[in-house]
């Protein structure tokens, strides 16, 4: 049938996915039949990361794997509204996406690949009572910091618009506690989402991770500062986890000045790691 976009069920909701069928256009990976499910970053980061995830999925399918990019509940083209979703419902969606690609491909082995908070969600997933192999591109390690970044984005946006310092992050937290939402660039962050994010600490959740995992730290230059969080995370995960640095000229999840549509170093890193999964 070829590459295609279609809706698939997740509970009572329908999610949009784009399926890349395996192609024999490049030398196949030697890992045997497998499918890779890509989990997007959140809010506006999803838009800016789209071309890179599309290209990654294309490269993986060109090497013989099935690949699925999909939108979580309330994100992208999927049904539902952002403010109705929670971390728990997004994890259900991720499991539904894995079921969908298994049904479409007939392949049982699923590897998860995510970027930013999408990587974090992938890291929290359990499939059939097992932990899947993971490729995490710049995962959010500490939900507390990430949730506060969202509030800071609100404060900064308001400051630019009104040209004065108005609300504080504390007052926004108070607003959430009163049952109101905080408009982060048009996405209405809820208290349930805020609390769900704050509960996340991958350092604890992924301690002694039993399956193979790749953590990709994207830096702007070869001498760029490495992420201490990611280095500590890999240490906590244990011997099955590997840390790789990929040099990309601009962030993969923010609007850049150069018109890039693929992350060459990240792609090479991911494909290299997939090759290792086939080795005894």
């Amino acid at each position, binding site marked *: 049938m070829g590459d295609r976009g279609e809706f698939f069920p997740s509970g009572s909701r*329908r999610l949009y996915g784009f399926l890349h069928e395996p192609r024999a256009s490049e030398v196949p990976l030697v890992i045997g039949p497998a499918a890779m499910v890509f989990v997007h970053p959140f809010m506006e980061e999803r838009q800016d990361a789209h071309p890179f995830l599309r290209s990654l999925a294309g490269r993986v399918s060109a090497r013989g794997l099935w690949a699925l990019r999909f939108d979580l509940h309330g994100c992208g083209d999927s049904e539902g509204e952002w403010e109705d979703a929670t971390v728990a419902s997004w994890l259900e969606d991720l499991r539904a996406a894995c079921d969908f690609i298994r049904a479409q491909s007939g392949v049982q082995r699923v590897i998860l690949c995510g970027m930013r908070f999408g990587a974090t969600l992938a890291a929290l997933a359990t499939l059939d009572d097992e932990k899947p192999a993971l490729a995490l591109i710049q995962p959010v390690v500490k939900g507390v910091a990430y949730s506060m970044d969202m509030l800071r984005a609100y404060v900064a946006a308001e400051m630019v618009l009104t040209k004065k310092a108005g609300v504080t992050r504390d007052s926004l937290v108070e607003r959430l506690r009163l049952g109101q939402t905080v408009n982060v660039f*048009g996405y209405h962050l809820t208290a349930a989402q805020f609390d769900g994010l704050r509960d996340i600490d991958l350092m604890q959740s992924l301690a002694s991770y039993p399956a193979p995992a790749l953590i990709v730290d994207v830096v702007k230059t070869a001498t760029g500062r490495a992420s201490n969080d990611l280095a500590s995370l890999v240490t906590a995960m244990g011997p099955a986890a590997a840390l790789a640095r990929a040099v990309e000229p601009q962030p993969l999840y923010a609007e*850049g000045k150069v018109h890039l*549509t693929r992350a060459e170093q990240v792609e090479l890193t991911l494909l290299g790691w997939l090759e290792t999964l086939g080795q005894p």
Partner: protein
Amino acid sequence: MEKAVCFTNENGQVLHGILHLPDDPATMRGAGLLWLSAGQKVRQGAWRMNVAIARRLAAKGVPTLRFDYRGIGDSEGEPRHGEMVMDLYGFIQNGGFRGDAIAAAQFLTAQTGIKSLVLGGLCGGAITGLFAAATLPNVFGHVVVDLPVTISSSSRQRYLEDHAAELLHSRPGETDTVIALYLKKLTDLTAWRRLLSGESDYSLLLEAARIKSRTQVDRLLPRLPPRARAGVERLLRGVLPPVEPESPPIPVDAALAAQMKVSGEVKNDLVEEVFQQALARGQRVRFVNSSSYHPTFMGYFGNTALRGDEASLNARGIELTLVPDTNHIFSLEHSQRALFEAIEAMVAMAT
């Protein structure tokens, strides 16, 4: 009901999109909406704006299509049109996605049997609709949101990056924005790290602070006796020189100056051309401007193309809505409401 759809453009490239239809086919109205994506953004738009618009319209019986242009989002095609993002903007501002919009309009019409069509979009989507409308037979009107009225290119982008402080010197009115942007960085640990390690170029902030300080001094100077004023002026010479009135940017070299003239600092004459063509074909045009973009729009286009009072503009099928206190992506609630109302009003007229 939302359907994943695909169709081809004039080059045979497959474009992917979502067609929003009313749940009850019996409520389908005779007019549809083609909502066009902005610039490099994929078909959902900022804050899923395009999804929200399409769902609202479909719920009112109006079939709505949103899709990815060639090379963008899920669609086939070459994604790059130059080295920089600004070059892609320039491509769009020259009608680069016109063929895709025409293919989408024809697909929407054929799929739903609508008699008339409203085209609209934010920024690059707005201008793409105007370009496409010149050859489409069933366009009733347009909702153009923050219509880009200049041409962008990487040469302008490079000039802005390399000479931002200099440019600010010639445009003191933008000082407050620059200071606000730097205030935002005060809460950013990365920015502090860059500052302390000497990686930051804070010349722009210094220039902004200098202009701001001098503006304050200029308010006080007239209150001083002439001799004291002259003394203060002498003291400030070199430290806080007077702020020059708005003036053209000072080019570094003639070649770059020539590039700038054709790349961003002049009006895009094609905008007026396609706008006049739309009016000549009897199409209505509703402009919706964010307060942050409105001055640029008026300066390069509105002051000349939209002359006349409200009644005379309306008689020509033109409306202009200025949404106060809002940004370019209309992410604030009041601006979202204004946007929805403008689109729904145009579609209501079309049915």
